[in-house]
């Protein structure tokens, strides 16, 4: 019976005919976006703590651990007149070259301050190589603010003002 092909062909045709009427399983991408699962590793970004302070202290661990050497940090100190002065350091410039980045997430893993996060943006595009390098401003713009339970800066400030602690 199978040698006749035709009955099985008819069965196959009925299957595909039913498929004709079903809804497409695809997304029409630029308009419809896929739901990003939690802990997705997208574009690496810098985040601020809920008090609006930048968390990065420019320890350069991420720069060191980055396998494709996509991160370049210029360390700097926080100016005297700033509210956050004397507490920690901050990066003067922070660049991630997205043409090099391999989205491995090791920077996020290594960061002691939880300042660098791979968030859910997955598509980067640009017309020049230069455009594909995210500078500090862009990284903070992409990163935004993430919830934080540590309030490290607050504790440090209190310690600095009241004396003691480990400044």
């Amino acid at each position: 019976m199978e040698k006749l092909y035709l009955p099985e062909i008819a069965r196959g045709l009925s299957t595909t005919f039913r498929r004709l009427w079903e809804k497409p399983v695809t997304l029409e991408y630029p308009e419809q976006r896929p739901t990003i699962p939690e802990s997705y590793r997208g574009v690496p970004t810098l985040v601020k703590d809920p008090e609006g302070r930048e968390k990065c202290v420019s320890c350069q661990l991420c720069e060191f651990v980055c396998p494709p050497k996509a991160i370049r940090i210029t360390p700097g100190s926080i100016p005297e007149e700033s509210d956050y002065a004397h507490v920690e350091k901050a990066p003067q410039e922070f660049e991630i070259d997205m043409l090099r980045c391999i989205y491995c997430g090791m920077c996020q893993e290594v960061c002691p301050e939880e300042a660098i996060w791979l968030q859910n943006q997955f598509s980067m595009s640009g017309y020049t190589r230069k455009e594909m390098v995210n500078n500090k401003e862009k990284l903070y713009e992409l990163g935004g603010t993430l919830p934080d339970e540590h309030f490290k800066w607050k504790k440090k400030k209190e310690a600095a003002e009241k004396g003691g602690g480990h400044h």
Partner: protein
Amino acid sequence: MEFNPIIVKFVYAAIVVVVIMTFCAYAVLAERKISSWIQGRVGPNRTALPLIGGIPVLGPFLTRLGIFQPLPDGLKFLFKEDVVPAHVNKFYFIMAPILSLVPALTTVAVVPFGQFVTEAGEVIPLVLANVNVGLLFLFAISSLGVYGVVLAGWSSNSKYPFLGGIRASAQMISYELAMGVSVLPVILWVNAPGKEGTMNLFDIAQAQNGFWFAMWMPLSAIIFLVCLFAETNRLPFDMAESETELVSGFHTEYSSFKFGLFFVGEYAHMIIGSCVFTLLFLGGWNPLPFVTLETLGMDKGILGAALSVGIFLGKMCAMMFLFMWVRWTLPRFRYDQVMRLGWSILLPLSIANLIAYAIIIFYLDTAL
């Protein structure tokens, strides 16, 4: 006002060719849309013409259907770089795509696509050349199409096109036999004793005002249909192309407009094949078995002619849908399976079918 009949014929021919080419373009669109629906995708839905696409409701609807897609598809073939590789045999390389399209467009001449009944009851076939040997002419010319494929494969001077060309020629030869034999019962029945002998497609279609031939010669119809798939190089018989094994077979080395000619040629062959199947087995422009336009009383004048053409084109489009539907359902046969199916199944089957129907028709013609 009297026109020179030759000029009138030229105008008719030009119109028919334009219509066929338009059908080809939209067949490509239909192919893309049907494949995407079967595969759970959306298909081309972005191309919009500035003016028509801007009409509210209708514009976006047509755009989503991809109605404007054939235009950029065609323009792409025109504007892409036309690469002629250095190692090809130039003369035959350029001739091959022309040879594959021209026979398909030539066969249109003998394919009737409707009837025009004057008030006096005279039936005029709507056909470019109402020749008596229509079917024979059609088989003869459409077989020439394989030369395009073979020449393309050979002149490309590279291995995959060569293999594709060899396979195509072997397949064409194998299936043409069964195809020719499978229509003989139809011709036997149409040429009843006492009538004038004919192989005219119009007469064959008109002979189906009772049973359609697909109904009382189902085996002939099935064999013819299978051979039609093979002759048009469609899946599951696309041995000439088999892109998973042979890159894309005979047209691997072709680009731009030359590839476009092959592409259009394939669809033109499909369209002609669908027309012929409709005429031979599906009753031409008869709306239903045992129901003709005459019994419905709607056969006279322009309206009747338009109705007959519409019914015929509708059936043809249904056949085209079948072609595409099968393509996106079945995997490709292996080469040896194709050969076995052609030579040791279809050919004996069609000969047995011919003998059986010859006996039946002899009995019917003499006894009744």
